[in-house]
């Protein structure tokens, strides 16, 4: 027996696909618009030197934002990343300052970052404490520990040419941090879009009870995504230490907000269940070029935060109101005709 659904005339399925990708398309359009505006208003913007510099400087933002995409897609949030970066930044500088070999320091710092992230994830996943609370506590504790270690002073890293390559080196003309960010991007895309783990992260974000009933190890998946933000925050802390040749407990203050903005600007839904790595990358790049472009066109640096905030608010407002309503109208029309 066949179930006879009454056939509705359908428009091309491309409309549905367009609606589903509307967020990524709109951020792509907005990114291009920013590029055009800054290219027209500054001679320096569209030079390879400037663009490579933007890539180098935005690499930490991009790497953490990619991991944050997983956290937000799973229905959580990680506010501790700025503090995590500061802690790893400080610990790395202190260890190098005291003569520890750099490969050991890098490996150890990555391990510490991942473990601290997993520890927060354990409280969230297995102890059922909201991620907002756990990582808010983490935000306070981790920077506190960094302050304790450095006593508030900046710790210099001197004469370590091999370590400096991580933040300042080039590889065939491309900044090493940009290469690291690109690798993170590819890994993030493959894991979220193509692998079982990413599918499970999405399922946990949209309907955790359905995921549990389907046999997905919900708590393990939830815990792991905080390990990912911990790991990439550690990488970001190392890159910043290498680029600035110093470590400071005051590094990356307010960084979590830039990261969350990049992710949400990219079209990942803040309540979970839908995430896009391409969107996040475009979101991070947009925030980076806005910061860069405003400096190039000689707008006071104090304006940067105001403009960034305004743009984020309006972009997301456009996204959630205008584009979604357009999508709904299209779908509605295809149904009633």
């Amino acid at each position, binding site marked *: 027996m066949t*179930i006879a659904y009454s056939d509705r005339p359908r428009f091309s399925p491309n409309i*549905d696909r367009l609606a589903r990708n509307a967020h990524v398309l709109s951020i792509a359009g907005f990114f291009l618009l920013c590029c055009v505006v800054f290219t027209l208003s500054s001679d320096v913007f569209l030079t390879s030197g400037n663009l490579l510099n933007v890539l180098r400087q935005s690499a930490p933002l991009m790497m953490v934002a990619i991991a944050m995409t997983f956290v937000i897609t799973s229905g959580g949030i990680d506010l501790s990343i700025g503090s995590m970066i500061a802690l790893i930044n400080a610990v790395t500088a202190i260890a190098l300052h005291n003569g520890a070999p750099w490969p050991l320091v890098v490996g150890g710092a990555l391990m510490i970052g991942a473990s601290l992230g997993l520890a927060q994830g354990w409280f969230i996943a297995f102890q059922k404490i909201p991620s907002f609370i756990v990582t808010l506590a983490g935000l306070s504790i981790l920077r506190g520990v960094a302050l304790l270690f450095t006593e508030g002073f900046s710790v210099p890293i001197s004469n370590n040419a091999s370590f400096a390559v991580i933040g300042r080196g080039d590889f065939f003309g491309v900044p090493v941090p940009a290469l690291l960010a690109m690798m993170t991007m590819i890994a993030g895309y493959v894991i979220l879009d193509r692998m079982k783990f990413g599918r499970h992260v*999405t399922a946990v974000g949209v309907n955790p009870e*359905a995921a549990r*009933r*389907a*046999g997905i*190890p919900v708590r393990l998946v939830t815990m792991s995504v905080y390990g990912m933000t911990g790991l990439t925050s550690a990488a970001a802390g190392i890159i910043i230490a290498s680029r600035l040749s110093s470590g400071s407990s005051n590094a990356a203050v307010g960084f979590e907000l830039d990261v969350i903005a990049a992710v949400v600007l990219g079209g990942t839904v803040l309540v979970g269940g839908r995430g896009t790595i391409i969107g996040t990358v475009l979101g991070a790049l947009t925030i980076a070029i806005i910061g860069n472009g405003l400096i190039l066109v000689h707008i006071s640096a104090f304006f940067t935060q105001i403009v960034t905030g305004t743009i984020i608010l309006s972009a997301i407002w456009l996204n959630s109101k205008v584009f979604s309503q357009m999508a709904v109208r299209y779908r509605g029309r295809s149904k009633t005709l």
Partner: protein
Amino acid sequence: MNLTGPNQSAATVRAVVRRGNPIVSMRGVTKRFGSVAALRGVDLDLFGGECLGLIGDNAAGKSTLTKILAGAYVPDEGSIILDGEPVRFAVPADARAQHIEMVYQDLSLCDTIDIPGNMFLGREPTRALMLDRAAMAQETRRMLDELGIRIPDLTLTVAQLSGGQRQSIAIARAAAFEPKVLIMDEPTSALAVVEVDAVLSLINRVKAKGVAVILITHRLQDLFRVCDRIAVMYEGIKVAERAIADTGLEELVQLIVGEAHTS
């Protein structure tokens, strides 16, 4: 219990033959939620090739009982015996591994994931570590065809489907993976008449394969088309069990509202 009534179907006869060997025996199952005693010691047997209708008023404990069998709840007391072996289901995955599948009343679908992704949720096939999307789409098409469910575009997310289509996906998912026990909690609530017919004929088909089916429904007339036996729940207790041939609509209604056994 008299099962030799004039209206018996082939399935009923099989059920009589298998009477001695239930696939599942639940014994003395209790479950409390805070101060509410949802189940107060329920015994239930399920036989292969038989459909058991589980009925009762709201909050009678039907869903709780079946969720315990599906591993979604852990009982406070009582035992489950599966094929003669005692089993404990700590998580739904344990029950699924034993081929106990359930269509949940809330459907348990992930709205932002496409149709094949929902069909294979939690058991996605992979090739070289990547999701094997082609295989998932192909298998999904085959499974839906087999159940006579027609959805032209499999790349749609579940959120884009109608209520009936969503329910069909949930049913197809439970029925497609060789279940030994198939539990359906209100599977037809969002379906049109033809679609209900398709689900009922699906139940008859899986029964014929030897599957034990539990059907929870408020549409009592459906029970008489597929069920072999009816169990009635009332405030956390199984108050009655009837062979389908021995009962009628009127008696079932009385049992549900509690007139037949509380007076």
